[in-house]
């Protein structure tokens, strides 16, 4: 089956490695990501002020346009997923706002699209046991910490993605690839998000706590589902090092990059040059590339 796919702005620029590895892996797993034509930015934040309908227009347009092409829309970026899924939910539940937005964008979208994350496709459509059978290069001995962040999980009632305090989908995915899952208490804590623009020092501190906790529990690599998180916990490691002199860097990979390794893709196609901390020494040491 093919899936309508919304990449989002960052996957076209600073997270090309996330986009490319997901597309390549999906072909190996027997489905294709069909890019939504003429997509725009999703707005990158779900408006929390209840009277702010303007910020709902971009995701509403995306949903309406996707519904003209199919019935299921998938995303990779956790922030896009959150914004689009919450807007879809609002279209299902709030008739007044739905009509107002539809009138404005001159569409008639009724909220009848299914919004799924790539991880959900891997779990529900491919299946983790089947995924395990298709792994060509098991990540045996790699101690990986699954970092969920916030946007996939919260608000729990609207995202309906996984348990709000003890999610397990990411663990199931890493186990299917043969990795050793590292449990750590900061796996659902915030990375600081857009505070990297407002108060960068605060975001650095959040990242330091997350990475410190993962390393203390034995992680060799932290795995992410979000370009915002990845910026904060990977690229900001240079800022952490300046503040905490004894800090040792740790590679941060997108889950699709690990999937790519496990599916036997050539490591030169996995876009490691966009990762701030070079994962190659670790992966070579484990005999994975």
């Amino acid at each position, binding site marked *: 089956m093919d899936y309508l796919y919304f990449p*989002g*702005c*960052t996957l076209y*620029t*600073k*997270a090309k490695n996330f986009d490319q590895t997901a597309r390549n892996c999906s072909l190996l797993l027997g489905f294709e990501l069909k890019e939504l034509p003429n997509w725009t*930015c999703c*707005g*990158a*934040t779900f*408006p*929390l*002020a*209840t*009277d*702010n309908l303007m*910020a709902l227009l971009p995701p509403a347009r995306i949903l309406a346009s996707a519904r003209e092409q199919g019935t299921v829309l998938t995303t990779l*970026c956790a*922030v896009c997923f959150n914004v689009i899924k919450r807007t879809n939910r609002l279209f299902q539940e709030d008739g007044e706002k739905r009509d107002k937005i539809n009138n404005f964008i001159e569409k008639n979208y009724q909220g009848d699209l299914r919004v799924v994350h790539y991880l959900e496709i891997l779990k529900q459509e491919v299946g983790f046991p089947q995924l395990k059978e298709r792994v060509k290069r098991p990540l045996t001995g790699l101690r990986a910490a699954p970092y969920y962040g*916030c946007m996939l*999980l*919260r*608000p*729990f009632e609207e995202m309906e993605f996984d348990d*709000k305090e003890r999610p397990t989908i990411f663990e199931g995915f890493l186990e299917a690839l043969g990795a050793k899952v590292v449990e750590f208490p900061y796996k*659902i*804590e*915030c990375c*600081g*998000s*857009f*505070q*990297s*623009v*407002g*108060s960068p020092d*605060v975001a650095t*501190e*959040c990242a330091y*706590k997350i990475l410190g906790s993962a390393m203390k529990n034995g992680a060799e690599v932290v795995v992410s589902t979000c*370009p*915002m998180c990845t*910026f904060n916990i990977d*690229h900001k490691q240079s800022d952490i090092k300046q503040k905490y002199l004894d800090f040792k860097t740790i590679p941060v990979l997108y889950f699709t990059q690990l999937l790519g390794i496990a599916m036997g893709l050539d490591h030169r196609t996995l876009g490691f040059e966009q990762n701030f901390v070079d994962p190659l020494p670790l992966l070579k040491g484990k005999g994975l590339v």
Partner: protein
Amino acid sequence: MKIELTRQKVHNEFAKKVELISGQNLFACYQCGNCTAGCPISFAMEIGPHEAIRYTLLGLEEEVLGVNTFWLCASCLQCTSRCPKGIDIARVMDALRMVVLRRKERRDHIQISEFPEGFLEKVPQIAFISGFRKFLS
């Protein structure tokens, strides 16, 4: 700061405005502090989110709008997810931001022209767009 204990300031216009924008019932808050305890950024906040709610209820408008608390909120929704009274606290923090940003004098929280050199090339688009939506009027 001097706080006068009186019942007159409760149900003030400012609290009503915050309730209207956030869509939340602030009077449901019983000050358990769960939001502040679970907040990943409370270490840097001048007052905790639960205190910001209390200040708002007491009508201490200038005092609560003067702290950094709601500017530092990253909308991660940990507080919202854990509030035993079902208050979407992140919406309350956003409403406080909105009260400032929608004022006539339009005071932005960040100045794009003051970003350090190379910042725009380094930071991903997604962070800028959500940051601009939260910090610019």
